[in-house]
C-alpha cells in the first residue's frame, strides 16, 4: 500500500498555482512522467520510433473529423447515401472534413503498419514487453472493426457488399453461425438495423481505442522503449529525457506526415477508394469485382487463397491472432534483427510477401493469382512456424556491451 503520510503540500494558491494544483491532482506530473522531462527514453531511437506518437495523432484526427461528420450524417438506409453527398456538396467545408476522415483512415493504417513492422524488426515484442505487444494487437483488431463499420456508413455498393461478405464470415461458427449472423444484421440481410448499429459502434469504438492506448502507454512506461540495438539498458547515460529531445523529433516527423497527408487530401482524396462506392447500395446486384479497402487486402487474400470456406476464415483470423503468441514463438534472446542474420532475411521476405498478399488480394480470384496467393499465404504462416527453429540454429552476431559501443 502507498504511504499514507501527508506530503509537503503547497497551501498558498497564488504563490505557485501550478504546484498548488499539482499537489491536489498530479496532472502535470502525469504528463511530465509520460511524455515529458521525467520520462527517460533511450538516446539512440531512430525515426521508426516516431510512428507511435503519429498513430496517436492520427486517432485524434479521426475523432475530431468524425465528430463533425456526425453532425450531418444520417444513419438510415433511405438517407445515408444522400447525406454523405450532402456533406460533400452543400455543407460548408464538408468536402474537406470528409476527405480528412477518409484519407485519415488510410494514413492511420499506414502509420500502424509501419509501427508494427518496426516492432517485428527490433524484437520489441519480446520479454518484458509481451503485454505491450498484445495490447497493440488488440488495438489493431478494434481499429479494423472500426474502419470496416465506418466504410459501411456511406451506403454505396462497396459498403453494402463489403458488409455482406464480412458479416457472413461469422456464419462458419459451429452450430449457431447462421443465427449469429442474423443477430448481427438485426434482419435477414444487411439492412437498416445493421446500418444504425454500425453507426453507433463506429462512434463508440474509437473511444474504446483511446482507453486501450492508455493501457498501451502504461505498459510502455513500465519497461521504457526498446531501441535499435535491442539491448537492455541500465546505465543512466543511455537515456535522455523525452522532452525536449523526442517531443521535438516527433513534431518534426508530424510535419512531414501532415505534408504528405495534405497532398493526398487535396489532390487525390479518392485514390485509395473505389468508384463503386459512389453507386448507391443495391441488394440485387453484386459489383463484378468487389474488394475491401486496401488495408484489409493481405488478409482478404489469405481468405480467398484457401478453397474451403471454414479453413479460409480460420486462416484469415489466425493470421492476425498468431501475433499474440509471437513472443513465445520467437525464443531467441537477441531482440534486434541487426544481430540476427537469418531472422533478418526471413523478416524482409516476410514484409515483401505481405505486400504481395496485398497486391494479389486486389486481383480477381482466378488463374495465376490464386496460385500466387497460395504461395504467399504459405510463407506468411511458414515464417511464424520457422521462428522456434531459427532461434535454435541461428548464429547471432556478437552483441555490443552498450549503445555507445554499437
Amino acid at each position: 500500500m502507498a504511504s499514507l503520510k501527508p506530503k509537503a503540500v503547497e497551501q498558498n494558491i497564488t504563490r505557485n498555482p501550478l504546484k498548488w494544483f499539482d499537489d491536489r491532482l498530479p496532472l502535470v506530473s502525469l504528463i511530465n512522467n509520460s511524455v515529458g522531462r521525467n520520462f527517460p527514453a533511450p538516446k539512440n531511437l531512430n525515426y521508426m520510433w516516431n510512428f507511435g506518437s503519429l498513430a496517436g495523432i492520427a486517432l485524434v484526427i479521426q475523432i475530431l473529423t468524425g465528430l463533425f461528420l456526425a453532425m450531418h450524417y444520417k444513419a438510415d438506409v433511405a438517407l445515408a447515401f444522400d447525406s454523405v453527398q450532402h456533406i460533400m456538396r452543400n455543407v460548408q467545408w464538408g468536402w474537406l472534413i470528409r476527405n480528412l476522415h477518409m484519407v485519415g483512415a488510410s494514413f492511420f493504417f499506414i502509420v500502424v503498419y509501419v509501427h508494427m513492422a518496426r516492432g517485428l524488426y527490433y524484437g520489441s515484442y519480446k520479454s518484458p514487453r509481451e503485454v505491450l505487444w498484445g495490447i497493440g494487437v488488440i488495438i489493431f483488431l478494434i481499429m479494423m472493426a472500426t474502419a470496416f463499420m465506418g466504410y459501411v456508413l456511406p451506403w454505396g455498393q462497396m459498403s453494402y457488399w463489403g458488409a455482406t461478405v464480412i458479416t457472413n464470415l461469422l456464419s462458419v461458427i459451429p452450430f449457431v453461425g447462421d443465427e449469429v449472423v442474423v443477430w448481427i444484421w438485426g434482419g435477414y440481410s444487411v439492412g437498416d438495423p445493421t446500418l444504425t448499429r454500425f453507426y453507433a459502434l463506429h462512434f463508440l469504438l474509437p473511444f474504446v481505442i483511446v482507453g486501450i492506448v492508455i493501457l498501451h502507454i502504461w505498459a510502455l512506461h513500465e519497461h521504457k522503449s526498446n531501441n535499435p540495438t535491442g539491448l537492455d539498458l541500465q546505465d543512466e547515460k543511455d537515456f535522455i529525457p523525452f522532452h525536449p529531445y523526442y517531443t521535438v523529433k516527433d513534431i518534426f516527423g508530424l510535419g512531414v506526415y501532415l505534408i504528405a497527408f495534405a497532398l493526398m487530401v487535396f489532390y487525390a482524396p479518392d485514390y485509395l477508394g473505389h468508384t463503386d462506392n459512389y453507386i448507391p447500395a443495391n441488394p440485387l446486384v453484386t459489383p463484378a469485382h468487389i474488394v475491401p479497402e486496401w488495408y484489409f487486402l493481405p488478409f482478404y487474400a489469405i481468405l480467398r487463397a484457401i478453397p474451403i470456406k471454414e479453413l479460409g476464415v480460420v486462416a484469415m483470423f489466425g493470421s492476425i491472432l498468431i501475433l499474440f503468441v509471437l513472443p513465445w514463438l520467437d525464443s531467441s534472446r537477441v531482440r534486434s534483427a541487426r544481430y540476427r542474420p537469418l531472422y533478418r532475411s526471413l523478416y524482409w521476405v516476410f514484409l515483401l510477401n505481405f505486400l504481395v498478399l496485398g497486391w494479389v488480394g486486389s486481383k480477381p480470384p482466378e488463374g495465376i493469382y490464386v496460385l500466387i496467393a497460395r504461395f504467399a499465404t504459405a510463407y506468411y504462416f511458414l515464417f511464424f512456424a520457422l521462428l522456434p527453429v531459427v532461434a535454435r540454429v541461428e548464429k547471432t552476431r556478437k552483441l555490443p556491451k552498450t549503445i555507445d559501443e554499437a
Partner: protein
Amino acid sequence: MAKPSSKPTASASDVDADRRKFLVGTTAAVGAVGAACCAVPFVGSMAPSRDVAAQATVDINLSEIPEGEAKTYLWQGKPVFVWHRNAAQIAAAKAGDTTSTMDPEPDAKRVQKPEWLVVLGICTHLGCVPIRNDEVGGWRCPCHGSQFDVSGRVIHGPAGTNLHIPPYTFVDDNTLRIG
C-alpha cells in the same frame, strides 16, 4: 467469539473461513446470474425486430418469365432466383445428379416442378449475388469464384453447400408464393 481485537483489522482467528468462503461464493454466483439476466434484453434487442421477423411473402406472376430464362425477386431483403427451365436445362440438371459431388443432392429433391427452379440468390460462401454463367449453364459468384450448376448445386469452391431453397408454394398454375 474471541474478544474484540484492539487493531482495526480483524485478526485471522476472528474469521470463520468456511462461512466467509460460502458467502463470497454464493454472492458472486447470484451476482453473475443477475448480470447474465441483465444481458438478455440488450442482446435480444439486437435480434430482428417484430416487423422484420414477420414472415413476409411475395407473390410472383410466373407468366412473366419466358421459358429458358430466370428472373430475380426480392424476398425478406434477399434476392430469389426463379428459373423457368426448358427441356434441355432439365436434362442437364438430371445429368448433374451424378457429377455434382461437392454437396450431392438429386435435382428432383431440389424442385417441386422440374421446369421451375427456385433458389436463394445468395452465394453460400459469403453472401454475394451470383451471376449467370453461360459456360456451365448455372451461376458463378463474382466475389471469390464459386460456381453453381443448373440445379443451383455447388460445383466449384470456396462455397461448400448448394444454393438454398426458400419455402415456396404454387398458389395456382400462374402464381408462385415465396415465404
